[in-house]
């Protein structure tokens, strides 16, 4: 277990040793801040039944900023080890393959959580400045941030998988971005496939991230989405483990 935490510590620290962490944080806070501003501006236009929490998490700006961070966070996790050759010193130390895969993934998840923490301030500031409520109930905050965590875990596992495929960080970033966008677009299919059966549309709706966010930001915690994200994360981590092992056999 000590080895596990040693590996995890190295993963988290490595973010802050490179400029990546600071660049991603600035970029991300700027974009989410902007998305929040747009959300507030929307509410200012006239009476509406959505809250700030809903308005913030359901704009196109939010999604653009949100989906871009995953390739940035995950692209170096395995690729850099392959490129530097440090994979050889790492995997000849007495550590197990699964420990490496899990700590790399978990390191990214922890960085992702750190990335999101400051955004909670937006809602405090809003409540304080407007004397109004950001959400109708505490559940809306809990739901939104729970979904962010679940989606983050899944998209990071996709990014880690892409990174385990190649020693080129750019290629890893492109693969993960495309995979994440394909998943997002698949969720949108339900709106265009109007002439197919309602059941098929429901299936696509089931894994639509946008739809999940609409539900969770109202404070409705949908267990189907929880099951979906947890099982897909596990699946992607198993795939990453397999790819990581096979990679070792080829070099």
């Amino acid at each position, binding site marked *: 277990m*000590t*080895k596990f935490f*040693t*590996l995890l*510590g*190295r993963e988290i620290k*490595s973010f802050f*040793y*490179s400029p990546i962490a600071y660049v991603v944080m600035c970029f991300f806070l700027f974009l989410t801040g902007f998305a929040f501003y747009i959300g507030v501006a929307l509410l200012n236009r006239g009476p509406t039944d959505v809250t700030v929490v809903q308005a913030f998490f359901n704009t196109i700006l939010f999604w653009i900023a949100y989906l871009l961070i995953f390739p940035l966070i995950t692209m170096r996790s395995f690729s850099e080890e392959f490129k*530097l*050759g*440090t*994979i*050889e*010193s*790492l*995997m*000849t*130390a*007495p*550590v*197990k393959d699964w420990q490496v895969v899990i700590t790399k993934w978990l390191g990214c998840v922890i960085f992702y959580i750190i990335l999101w923490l400051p955004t909670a301030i937006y809602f405090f500031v809003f409540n304080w400045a407007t004397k109004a409520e950001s959400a109708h109930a505490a559940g809306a905050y809990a739901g939104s941030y729970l979904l962010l965590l679940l989606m983050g875990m899944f998209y990071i596992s996709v990014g880690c998988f892409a990174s385990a495929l190649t020693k080129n960080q750019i290629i890893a970033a492109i693969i993960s971005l495309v995979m994440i966008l394909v998943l997002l677009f698949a969720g949108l299919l339900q709106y265009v496939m109007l002439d197919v059966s309602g059941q098929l549309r429901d299936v696509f709706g089931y894994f639509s991230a946008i739809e999940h966010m609409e539900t969770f930001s109202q404070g409705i915690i949908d267990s189907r989405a929880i099951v979906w994200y947890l099982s897909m994360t596990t699946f992607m981590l198993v795939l990453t483990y397999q790819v990581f092992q096979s990679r*070792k*056999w080829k*070099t």
Partner: protein
Amino acid sequence: MIKVENLTKKYAGFTAINNITFEVGKGEIVGFLGPNGAGKSTTMRILSSFMPATAGSASIAGFDVFEKSMEARAHLGYMPENVPLYTDMRVTEYLVYRAELKGVSGRRLKERVGDVKELCGLKDVENRIIGTLSKGYRQRVGLADALVHEPDLLILDEPTIGLDPNQIRSVRELIKNLGRHHTILLSTHILSEVEATCSRVIIINRGRIEASDTPDNLRRQLRGAGGIRLEANPGKDDGVAELQKIAGVKDVTVQVDGEWKLFLVRADANADLREEVFRLASDRKWRVRELSQRGATLEDVFVEMTHAE
């Protein structure tokens, strides 16, 4: 310490090592020689459990590197070729990290990290970021990393490549000192290094072991390879033509210096042709200034064994 049996590794399209068998006993310092692409690094990577073999088996300290990989790795200090390091970490931090990964903990961790820094001369740079270190220091960090968990066995893949002569000498001294307490398998291209440090040499070529013996024995086997040096004035004779007629002579090269000629006669391995050359010279009434046997160096042995047919 190391036991390799019928080890084979095939990559798509070619065989990197082909059915090799060798052993390295406790306390030996063994040099692993071979031209580029001979299979040295492949063998070392299999021994370090970095990749599996296609066939055959290898074990370290009695633990199979595939079946009991964790135990085998714990007994091994491995320094890969080109010494890959995390360039964003500081020297001490890196060594602590590596020691923890290798299961060193508590007070022993502090002691060991201090000891290896001392041993490898890293005290001056302990707080520097690895990325800013020179090649020589990085090499030492790699060596310190390999030593930090007090392994019984060290496998060093080209430990002195890319160093300047002073650094090579200091790393060589270090390896020699380590040899008192550790078993070492090192690969290198620098033959003088092997002569200076190793008690045994394994020469590998095209995935096969060509020889495994002490440097002295290898040189002795190949006495003729060094050749004979004859400085003579053959008068009206050509010299080269006559020398080539001697049985066992492989080739003769000549340098002309006025009426004197310097012949270098290369003979088949294990043949000493000095008497025949002398007889020829005295029969033909050549005036001779020098006749000597040039001893084979390890380089001759190496070239002889690994030269493409």
